[in-house]
């Protein structure tokens, strides 16, 4: 491909990385509006000029769905923003979501050539810019479906894995139906990720766009209960099924006091706020309780979402308690940084041992131990070790545990022949196929708790595999002629 930018590489390197326009921390910690407004057109054009247009664009290899990053950045340079977003949509149907929640710093931007000596190109922000441009100017057109397939595919769960798999199969012309247990689609994008990081309006629009491909959506349908997997095959006559039911069952630490009133799993706390809009109580009926002092336990993105939500709900002091140091935190740097800006108090190298309550069974404190870092453990991170006699108590009236999630077991329990791993995850091969014919799976259900984009990558790989499976089933002789997009299979992060 020809270079579009006439500037020399040395000139491009002199341009500073452009930053998003953001709500001031002092203001945003009082509201649920989006923190970042993204890049404006001027900044996006400057940022696009920083791309070195590498002959071998390694950035694409860092993308779990294999977006042609160089091409879409070149289209931005030519001010063809719609062309750019269409280029992205060839491989990723949900750019407005990915541009907001993907951890680009550990993916495409981590291996960006510009990033070797300077700051990497802000690929994620450019993705968001074109997606938002298309949305603001109402320029979306569904891709034309050239060939209709008669096979029916069921997608169980409408989170990032399921939505991606549904969109890809929809584009290929299959008869796709999504089954969602909650009353709104999106899975963790709806119940987990707060409004201030991903406005639910964006999700509603993406859902409409998936329906524009002919995909049917049933909400309030809990597969395993409303209909089992076997019934989806035998009675509903689906030819293949993709399971993307996520990791929705919360884990608890197992310390005394967890059943006191005022103790939430992060899942419950975020579901009440995001799905049920408890921040607008009593305009919305679902209540949520926030103390003047609150503590969130954990160091992942869910913990950051919970503690920043608690601050917005009115907590005067919001503590984040994490047993290792800041360096070991699994949360995205951007989320940690935003939390710090918003006045979240980090209690690092601190491990809760007991939740304390008053005579009415309400939380009134949390007892913790000070920790120090010892030898590295299996994960390579240095293991926290308790310091003797270092107990101390922090007064809090709300405790939120964000210490991990497991897959919901309902489908595994009601489906025979499905291999299930140690932590309740469904076992899949390299193309997301499960141990049972015709059933594919991906996302947190198979990973046990990862990121939105990895789930989308799985959904995409599964869509290729389902296509191959259905075509081979239809005409076994044509095996050799099938054009499977192997590069996607090869680049899919595992």
């Amino acid at each position, binding site marked *: 491909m020809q270079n579009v930018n006439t500037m020399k590489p040395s000139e491009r390197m002199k341009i500073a990385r452009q930053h998003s326009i953001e709500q001031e921390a002092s203001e945003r910690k009082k509201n649920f509006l989006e923190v970042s407004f993204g890049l404006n057109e001027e900044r996006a054009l400057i940022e696009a000029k920083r791309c070195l247009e590498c002959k071998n664009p390694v950035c694409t290899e860092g993308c779990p769905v294999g977006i042609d990053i160089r091409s879409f950045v070149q289209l931005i340079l030519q001010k063809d923003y719609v062309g750019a977003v269409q280029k992205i949509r060839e491989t990723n149907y949900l750019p407005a979501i990915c541009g907001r929640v993907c951890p680009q710093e550990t993916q495409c931007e981590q291996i960006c050539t510009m990033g070797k000596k300077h700051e990497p190109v802000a690929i994620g922000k450019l993705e968001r810019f074109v997606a938002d441009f298309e949305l603001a100017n109402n320029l979306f057109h569904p891709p034309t479906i050239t060939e209709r397939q008669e096979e029916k595919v069921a997608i169980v769960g409408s989170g990032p894995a399921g939505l991606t798999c549904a969109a890809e199969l929809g584009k290929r012309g299959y008869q796709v139906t999504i089954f969602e247990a909650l009353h709104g689609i999106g899975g963790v994008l709806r119940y987990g990720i707060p409004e201030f990081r991903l406005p639910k309006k964006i999700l509603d629009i993406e859902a409409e766009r998936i329906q524009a491909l002919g995909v049917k959506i049933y909400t309030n349908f809990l597969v395993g209960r409303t209909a089992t997997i076997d019934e989806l095959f035998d009675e509903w006559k689906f030819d293949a099924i993709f399971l993307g039911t996520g990791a929705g*069952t919360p884990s608890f630490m197992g310390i005394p006091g967890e*059943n006191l*009133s005022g103790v939430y*799993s992060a899942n419950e706390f975020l579901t009440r706020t995001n799905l049920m809009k408890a921040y607008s109580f009593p305009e919305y009926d679902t209540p949520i309780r926030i103390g003047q002092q609150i503590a969130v336990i954990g160091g992942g993105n869910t913990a950051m979402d919970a503690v920043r939500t608690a601050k917005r709900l009115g907590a005067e002091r919001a503590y984040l308690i994490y047993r290792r140091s800041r360096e070991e935190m699994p949360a995205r740097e951007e989320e940690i940084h935003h939390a710090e800006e918003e006045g979240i108090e980090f209690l690092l190298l601190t491990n809760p041992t007991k939740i304390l309550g008053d005579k009415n069974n309400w939380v009134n404190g949390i007892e913790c131990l000070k920790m120090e870092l010892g030898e590295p453990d299996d994960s390579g991170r240095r293991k926290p070790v308790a310091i003797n006699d270092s107990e101390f108590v922090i007064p809090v009236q709300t405790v939120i545990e964000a210490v991990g999630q497991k897959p919901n077991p309902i489908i595994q329990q009601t489906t025979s022949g499905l291999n299930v791993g140690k932590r309740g995850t469904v076992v899949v091969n390299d193309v997301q196929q499960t141990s049972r014919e015709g059933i594919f799976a991906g996302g947190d259900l198979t990973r046990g708790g990862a990121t939105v984009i990895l789930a989308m990558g799985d959904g995409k790989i599964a869509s290729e595999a389902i296509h191959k499976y259905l075509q081979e089933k239809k005409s076994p002789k044509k095996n050799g002629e099938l054009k499977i997009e192997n590069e996607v299979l090869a680049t899919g992060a595992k």
Partner: protein
Amino acid sequence: MYLITHKEKLSPTITKYVVKAPFIAPKRKAGNFVILRVEEHGERIPITIVDSDTNAGTITLIVQAIGKTTKLLATKNVGDSILDVVGPLGNPTPIENHGAVVCIGGGVGTAEMLPIAKALKKAGNTIYTIIGARSKELIILENEMKEFSDKTFITTDDGSYGKKGVVTDQLKDLLDAPLGISAVYAIGPLPMMKFVSLLTKQYNVHTLVSLNAIMVDGTGMCGGCRVTIGGEMKFACVDGPEFDGHHVDFDEMIMRSRSYLDMEKISDELFTTQHQCQLEK
């Protein structure tokens, strides 16, 4: 949208609704529940499925109007719809032939007991039913329960109907009599289930109770409904809703169920003020 096809008042505050839910109707078993959300701004609440009609594709719900959401539901009429209904949720009641069993329904809990008594009868049990309530007007489904019961007893706190007293008085008489009672199923207010369980423990009679914990999703996702059973954490929505009454930590559950009382009151008062005329109808 889930259409209300039939509505009937069973008492001044307890209403029976037949709701179109064609996917749920053929799948539901005794003990299953649904989570419903009446309107867009509404909360999700668990309601036990009392009956279903596979041919008509309907389920029957019996609901007491005690708070905002249940009062809002009571303003809906035949032809109106409930926005969201998901189910059937929870594990079905384990039904076996115990010989002689006591089925206890307290207040609106009688509605939840009805399908269980029906299934237990079908399994060959001799059924002794106790229906209890504060007063006569809250005694519901007496005739329906009688249909599946070998003997039915009524108790009211104020003595306005049946025997004056509480269900445990009647239960003690049954346990003391030579009837060979080998299991007790109890559904009603938490204190009732607590005292039933305490009593049957003395007699070492297996007791099953249904825990109506605070829930959001009802599918095992939020953990809001966690209860302590024999010292272990369980989720009422996916591990229950029925548990061995002798192992339930009722005191903790009672405390947890009061977590939002003040906010529930705010919602209720706001709603009652806004809908005074509709509620009086």
